């Protein structure tokens, strides 16, 4: 019963045609089926013979039923039956859809769209207007097609809707008749809900739809020592609700998440996402899971994540002797984690670095002192390294007072031997780092003993003297390494510990506040959010925001939420500020969107009817005796329906075959002649490989690049033919993967087979260029005389196939090292991903099933075929063993060592 109450018809009058079915019954009953026709030479002898039974043939009852059923289904289908929600419209006025499409509507947007589709279908031919509240414009009446198009283009916007503007637009439109308003609301009150309702109810009849669960919002998060304190808000306070809040990185990866509970009666919920310091810096946004709206996302400023680091060195050796330069080691250690800049002190501070490294700067000179002090006050971190200059006295921008003159091995305050590090103090930020035993210090600058020294030392040597000291100054830190940044005084810069320590020091820096950086300039949009909270490149009409107004700017079409500023120092403009609240919309007569979708039955019924008619045709054929011979055709038709399943099974079987034995493979070009030569060619090569080498290949396999898994095949033979089609992008990326993971493709341009010319304009090479467009090919060179390909099994000078003399190209090898003893073979690392030549090798290798060659190599005859086979053997050995043969040249030395 429930099913039938949900059934409705778009064109019910067509159902009257069902009354004609009995007539059809009668007609079919009196029309006998066609007799089968038989071509019969002795017809003369049949003429005049009398049939004993002359009763007219009847259409069998089941065939009648089949035909009636098909006719009935077609009639039903044409009556446009629909199952599900039936949005009936009253009267004949235009349909006006008022759609809330601010960010608050982004959640469950598909529900809204399906309701719009149903309403448009119900509207049939009457004119329709669509009024989105977030992008209100003049109200125009559209016909069915235009309305459907504009409904499809409707999207939630990242800013809130303006219902008053929408109401004004509707009032201005003066719609004729009594319009049917449907307001697809977001269920939230913005202070103008009642204005709109009164405007609409006054102008026509009104239905209001509201979602069962209106959107949630996420308020700006607070950074605390251990992560983020997160607050979310909701519109109503009924019942408890648990949602998941996640910290998401810049590439969309979830860094951490935590459940957030709204207690019954509460409109706010709070939780805490715990993140280690380093991971916290990688967080790009916080979001409520499953909300998919801009209001449920809080973007974070990106200024803090990547720090600018300035390096200053007093030594001038930087360019001449890089390995003795302090800067070199710092730069190498810092580059992966920070944006490294080099320059003078004032220059770098002017460029707003967050961390300043001074390597062996003894005295910070006059004007720079003030700049550095200001820098420290603003939260900057100053990290200094000792050196010969500092040994001669320094300024007061050091954590502890220092003794002049260093201490080193063999000096007055001598060590007997280099000192090791002791474990880090508990209060040190380095606490927890593993100390490698090989790190030793042979020279350092000593601190004057003082009371603070114990607290200020972050690292010590085994004799208790400080290695790293630090002091808080203003909002920032001064850190001093009592050794040089280069390995001159200790082996610390050569160890991993050095990098780890510098990383910890970077994390110490809170980063320069991004807004302060660009206080004087305009902030241009970098990326903006759409209504669903996804980041998009900004539209060209989005204006930059003056930095001083940034805190007060209102979210609007002109200023959508997103990241503003410059790359690396972007400020986030978010949908919701700390004071945001959500209120429920409570108006009389609101109804839910409902989940039910209207199912249009017409196509299904039509398909079923067509199927029955096909069956009818088959049955008629069978009755007339045609079927036995035509059975194959019908079976083929049925087989078409199930073609997908065997394909998957065939794949499985092929992969199994390929995985169990190492096989040679060729690319199936789809051209029967080319593929046959490839197969016969590889079969011929197989015979030779079996006879001469320890590799016993099974039958070669043809590979469909698009559908088959390539990873089983070490070598793919690919003949070029102008008839081959271009590769689809998936195939290209598959081939790129194949080559990157160590596969080798032998491209054969078959120059002289395809045409009279060799060279760049031969049809094969043109095809090669066309097909390999988009492939990630390495730089190539003609096979050098000492390439391992010339020595992998046989010693070869050239590589003929069916033709001789063409150039063969492989990946360019690194140049031979000068001055070193000449090695007989070079191979580079791995195998060349492509080998390109045009000698039509498959034709030279090709043998028939009896092992007889199928083509005549030109001009060298059988000797040339032999060399072609030798090239094949070398090629397979190269593809299978890589540069193993080049390593073989060291075999005597290795044997020598074993003795």
């Amino acid at each position, binding site marked *: 019963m429930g099913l039938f109450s949900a059934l409705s018809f778009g064109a019910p009058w067509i159902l009257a045609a069902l009354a004609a079915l009995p007539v059809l019954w009668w007609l079919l009953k009196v029309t*006998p*089926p066609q*007799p*089968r*026709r*038989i*071509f*019969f*030479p*002795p*017809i*003369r*002898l*049949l*003429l005049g*013979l*009398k*049939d*004993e*039974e*002359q*009763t*007219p*043939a009847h259409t069998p009852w089941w065939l009648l039923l089949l035909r009636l059923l098909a006719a009935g289904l077609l009639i039903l289908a044409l009556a446009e039956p629909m199952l599900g929600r039936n949005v009936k419209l009253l009267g004949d006025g235009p349909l006006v859809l008022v759609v809330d499409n601010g960010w608050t509507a982004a959640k469950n947007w598909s529900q809204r769209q399906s309701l719009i589709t149903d309403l448009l279908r119900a509207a049939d031919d009457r004119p329709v207007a669509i009024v989105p509240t977030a992008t209100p414009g003049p109200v125009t009446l559209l016909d069915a097609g235009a309305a459907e198009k504009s409904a499809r283009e409707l999207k939630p916007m990242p800013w809130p809707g303006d219902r008053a503007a929408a109401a004004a637009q509707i009032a201005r439109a003066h719609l004729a008749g009594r319009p049917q308003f449907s307001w697809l609301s977001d269920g939230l009150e913005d202070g103008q809900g009642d204005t709109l309702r009164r405007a609409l109810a006054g102008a026509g009849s009104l239905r209001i739809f509201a979602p069962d669960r209106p959107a949630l919002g996420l308020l700006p998060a607070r950074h605390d020592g251990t992560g983020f304190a997160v607050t979310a808000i909701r519109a109503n306070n009924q019942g408890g609700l648990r949602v998941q809040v996640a910290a998401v990185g810049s590439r969309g990866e979830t860094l951490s998440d935590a459940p957030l509970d709204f207690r019954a009666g509460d409109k706010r919920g709070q939780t805490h996402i715990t993140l280690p310091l380093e991971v916290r810096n990688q967080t790009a946004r916080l979001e409520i899971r499953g909300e998919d709206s801009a209001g449920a996302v809080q973007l974070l400023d990106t200024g803090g994540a990547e720090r600018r680091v300035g390096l200053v060195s007093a030594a001038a050796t930087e360019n001449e002797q890089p390995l003795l330069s302090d800067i070199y080691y710092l730069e190498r250690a810092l580059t992966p984690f920070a944006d490294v800049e080099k320059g003078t002190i004032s220059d770098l501070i002017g460029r707003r670095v967050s961390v300043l490294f001074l390597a062996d700067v003894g005295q910070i000179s006059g004007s720079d002192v003030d700049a550095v002090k200001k820098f420290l006050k603003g939260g900057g971190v100053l990290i200094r390294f000792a050196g010969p200059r500092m040994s001669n006295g320094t300024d007061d921008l050091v954590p502890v007072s220092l003794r002049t003159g260093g201490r080193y091995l063999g000096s007055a305050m001598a060590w007997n031997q280099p000192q090791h590090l002791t474990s880090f103090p508990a209060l040190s930020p380095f606490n927890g780092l593993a100390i490698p035993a090989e790190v030793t210090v042979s020279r350092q600058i000593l601190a004057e003993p003082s009371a603070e020294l114990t607290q200020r030392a972050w690292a010590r040597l085994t004799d208790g003297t400080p290695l790293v000291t630090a002091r808080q100054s203003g909002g920032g830190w001064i850190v001093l390494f009592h050794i040089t940044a280069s390995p001159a005084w200790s082996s610390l810069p050569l160890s991993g510990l050095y990098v780890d320590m510098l990383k910890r020091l970077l994390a110490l820096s809170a980063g320069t506040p991004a807004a302060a950086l660009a206080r004087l300039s305009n902030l241009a949009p970098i990326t903006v959010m759409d209504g669903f909270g996804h980041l998009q490149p900004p539209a060209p009409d989005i204006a930059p925001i003056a930095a001083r107004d940034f805190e007060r700017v209102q979210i609007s079409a002109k200023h959508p939420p997103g990241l503003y500023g410059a790359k690396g120092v972007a400020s986030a403009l978010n949908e919701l500020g700390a004071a945001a609240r959500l209120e429920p919309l409570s108006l009389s007569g609101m109804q839910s969107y409902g989940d039910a979708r209207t199912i249009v039955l017409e196509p299904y019924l039509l398909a079923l009817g067509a199927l029955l008619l096909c069956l009818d045709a088959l049955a008629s054929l069978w009755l007339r*005796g045609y079927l036995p011979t035509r059975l194959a055709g019908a079976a083929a038709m049925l087989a078409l329906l199930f073609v997908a399943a065997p394909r998957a099974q065939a794949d499985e079987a092929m992969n199994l075959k390929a995985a169990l034995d190492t096989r040679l493979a060729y690319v199936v070009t789809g051209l029967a002649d080319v593929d046959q030569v490839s197969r016969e060619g590889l079969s011929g090569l197989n015979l030779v490989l079996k006879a001469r080498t320890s590799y016993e290949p099974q039958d070669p396999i043809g590979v469909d690049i698009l559908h088959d898994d390539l990873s089983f095949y070490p070598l793919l033979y690919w003949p070029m033919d102008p008839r081959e089609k271009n590769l689809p992008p998936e195939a290209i990326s598959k081939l790129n993967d194949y080559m990157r993971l160590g596969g080798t493709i032998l491209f054969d341009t078959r120059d002289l087979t395809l045409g009279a010319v060799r060279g760049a304009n031969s049809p094969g090479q043109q095809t090669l260029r066309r097909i390999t467009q988009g492939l990630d090919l390495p730089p190539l060179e003609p096979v050098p005389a000492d390439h391992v390909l010339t020595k992998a099994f046989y010693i070869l000078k050239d590589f003929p196939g069916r033709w001789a003399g063409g150039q063969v190209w492989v990946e360019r090898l690194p140049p031979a090292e000068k001055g070193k003893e000449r090695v007989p073979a070079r191979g580079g690392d791995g195998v060349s991903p492509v080998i390109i030549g045009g000698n039509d090798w498959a034709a030279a290798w090709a043998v028939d099933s009896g092992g007889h060659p199928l083509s005549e190599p030109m001009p060298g005859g059988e000797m040339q075929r032999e060399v072609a086979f030798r090239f094949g053997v070398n090629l397979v050995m190269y593809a299978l063993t890589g540069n193993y043969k080049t390593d073989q040249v060291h075999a005597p030395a290795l044997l020598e060592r074993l003795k």
Partner: protein
Amino acid sequence: MTGFSPLQHEADALGAGLPPLMVAADRLAASVSLGAHGRRKAGIGENFWQFRRYGSADSVGRIDWRQSAKSQHLFVREREWEAAQTVWFWRDSDPGMQFRSGDISKLDRANLLLLALAALLVRGGERVGLMGAAFLPAASRFTLSRIGHALLDKAMQEKERARTVQTSGPPPTPVARGSRIVWFSDFLQPDIEDRMTAFARLGVVGHLVRIVDPAEEDFPYTGRARFEAPRGHDSALFGRAESVASDYRARFTAHGEKIARTATKLGWSMTAHRTDHAPQTALIALHAAIGPS
């Protein structure tokens, strides 16, 4: 020089397109000749018969000097009697002959039997010819392949079909008295007996080979069916074809007997062959009837 090119052309055409039919016919002929008989020794010249001592009645010009020089006596070369028998072949090619219920049509079988028989006869020294063809009878392999080509020649079949709309049977051919006709057909044409009589009047001896499709003899059809003539507009509709089967079979047998009776009356012979039977049987029977004279 001018004569060379057409000859070359013809030879090429024959060599290139030796029809598979010829091969099949040769194979068939080889399979039956073994048990048959040997008429003469192979390899000896066609004409030579024997040398005889010169008699006074013989003309001097008939002395074979070469032979005579080998001995004391004079010898005369005696030739074989030169009037070798000519066997004319014919097979009907009207559309009904193309009927087949199994793998082989009546026409195909007739072609095969014809060529195989011709091959046997040529091997036995008889001259064979095809009625209606442009070449004269001869006893050579070359004639065999010409017959084969003529049988498969589409244009010639068309011409035949057009002619047999009026009169069925072999085309008028200058056939010598006493020569033989081997006539392959299904003998279903209404005027077939008149034609047989007409040829008998010319003094030829006929051998009829009646090719029958099994479906024509057994009539395996059931249910509602409309039978249509291969040529013309005759048709017969039956609600239950099986109900007329026994009547039809009786008629078909009677028709066969009638043809056989007519043949006997004319002094001719008739062999019936069903296309689902082995061709060797028919060939042996035919050869026995025609071959040794």
